[in-house]
């Protein structure tokens, strides 16, 4: 009888142990705490934080990508640090300081390569995703922006100073580089569409955007909205917009204008303008809810306390609210029922229902900026 009791206890302990070691990551995410060099591991379903992971260096303007198994995050810090974070073990797995001044990164479609885009020295460095060993170094002699992954083990990025886009093909090991000139003056950021076909750079030095059709073996620059600001007084730009959170709503793209209080609508097929929506301030992110029915927009300093929601059928603003001081980023749950919003100077991440616009919760965070759910692991360009 005593023996039976011990056996029962042993089975119970094993069961408990297993329950503790199985961690599923599909509904987890990381919030960048920019000032303190830490990440907050969060649970999207519970609307709560799990733990804080520290020691990641300067995380101002930091971003991250996920491994295909949604276990590892690769975090790109402003100080040139590339940190591999294990979200199951809840700790840093590896870290290298790969440059003096970095501005984002990407992971290849097969999950084996991580690329980092650098301002100083300008260029892209590519690392083995397992070991963080340097695989390829591609100096550009220019500040490098708009780095994305493209299908076929390729990375695409753009040179701020020269206005060139480079396509680095790593499918055969050594990088083969196709340089495309005449992308426009001072491209500041870029996006790739979810199907991996179109790469679009926004231009700071002139009106408009420039697209490349990556299905074309020799892509040529395609000008998009070359005169969108014509005849209007340009406003000072206190914060460059981001295109990473590009929005595709039905057949159209929605993009932030530079130097104007507007978002621009572009036909997804022929890239012609289909409309404009006047907004509260200069947009920073214009992000589509995953179903494409709404676009949520936040704004540059000093109007960065506000969010507007645009209905994509009517292109009209259907909701406006003020989550708090310094709204920096938004991330939708994968099917779009809720949105998480980082409000830096309130020290909070706020969670809203996207249909009723009711607040569903909030999480304490120190100067939160980017929010990244693990569902990004399975999306091109994120």
């Amino acid at each position, binding site marked *: 009888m005593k023996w039976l009791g011990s056996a029962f206890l042993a089975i119970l302990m094993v069961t408990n142990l297993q329950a503790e070691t199985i961690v599923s990551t599909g509904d987890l995410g990381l919030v960048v705490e920019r000032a303190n060099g830490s990440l907050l591991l969060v649970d999207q379903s519970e609307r709560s934080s799990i733990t804080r992971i520290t020691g990641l260096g300067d995380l101002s*303007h930091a971003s991250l990508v996920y491994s295909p198994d949604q276990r590892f995050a690769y975090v790109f810090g402003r100080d040139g640090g590339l940190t591999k974070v294990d979200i199951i073990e809840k700790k840093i797995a590896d870290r290298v300081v790969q440059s003096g001044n970095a*501005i984002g990164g990407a992971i290849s479609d097969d999950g084996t390569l991580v690329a980092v885009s650098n301002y*100083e020295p300008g260029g892209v460095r590519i690392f083995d995703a397992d070991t963080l060993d340097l695989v390829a170094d591609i100096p550009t002699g220019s500040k490098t*922006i708009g780095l994305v992954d493209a299908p076929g083990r390729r990375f695409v990025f753009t040179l701020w100073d020269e206005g060139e886009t480079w396509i680095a093909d790593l499918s055969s090991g050594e990088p083969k580089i196709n340089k495309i000139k005449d992308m426009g003056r001072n491209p500041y950021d870029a996006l790739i569409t979810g199907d991996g076909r179109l790469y679009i750079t926004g231009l700071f030095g002139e009106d408009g955007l420039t697209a490349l059709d990556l299905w074309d073996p020799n892509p040529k620059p395609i000008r998009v909205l070359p005169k969108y600001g014509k005849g209007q007084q340009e406003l*000072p730009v*206190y914060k460059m917009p981001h295109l990473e959170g590009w929005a595709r709503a039905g057949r159209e793209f929605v993009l932030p204008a530079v130097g104007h*209080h507007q978002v621009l609508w572009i036909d997804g097929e022929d890239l012609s303008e289909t409309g404009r929506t006047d907004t509260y301030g200069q947009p920073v992110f214009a992000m589509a809810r995953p179903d494409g029915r709404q676009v949520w927009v936040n704004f540059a*300093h*000093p109007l960065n306390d506000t969010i507007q929601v645009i209905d994509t059928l009517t292109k009209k603003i259907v909701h406006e609210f003020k989550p708090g001081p310094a709204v920096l980023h938004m991330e939708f749950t994968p099917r779009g029922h809720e949105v998480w919003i980082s409000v*830096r100077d309130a020290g909070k991440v706020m969670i809203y229902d996207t249909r009723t616009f009711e607040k569903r919760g909030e999480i304490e965070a120190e100067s939160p900026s980017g929010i990244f759910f693990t569902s990004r692991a399975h999306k091109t360009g994120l």
Partner: protein
Amino acid sequence: MRSLFVLLAFVCSPAFAGETSSFDDLINLVHQDCGSCHGLTLKGGLGPDIRPDALSHYDVSTLSTVVLDGIPDTAMPPWRPLMSEADAKKIAEYLLHGDLK
């Protein structure tokens, strides 16, 4: 017309031009908002390094003019719509001599 309206909104708002701000608010502005181009630690990003050594060729008056009026044909915007001349001078002094965090 909309631009004019926006400008008026700035002028009428108590947080903007004409008012002087606390030193802490200004330091926060320098690191968070100047920092969106120049980096949170001011060592440079899309915009150049603006730590004291990198700015040593400026005096306070020239640097505060750059802050207020921007640099044409670059991404440096004029901050005059958002801040007073007194605040721009304080920021220039902080950038040139301040103990940077």
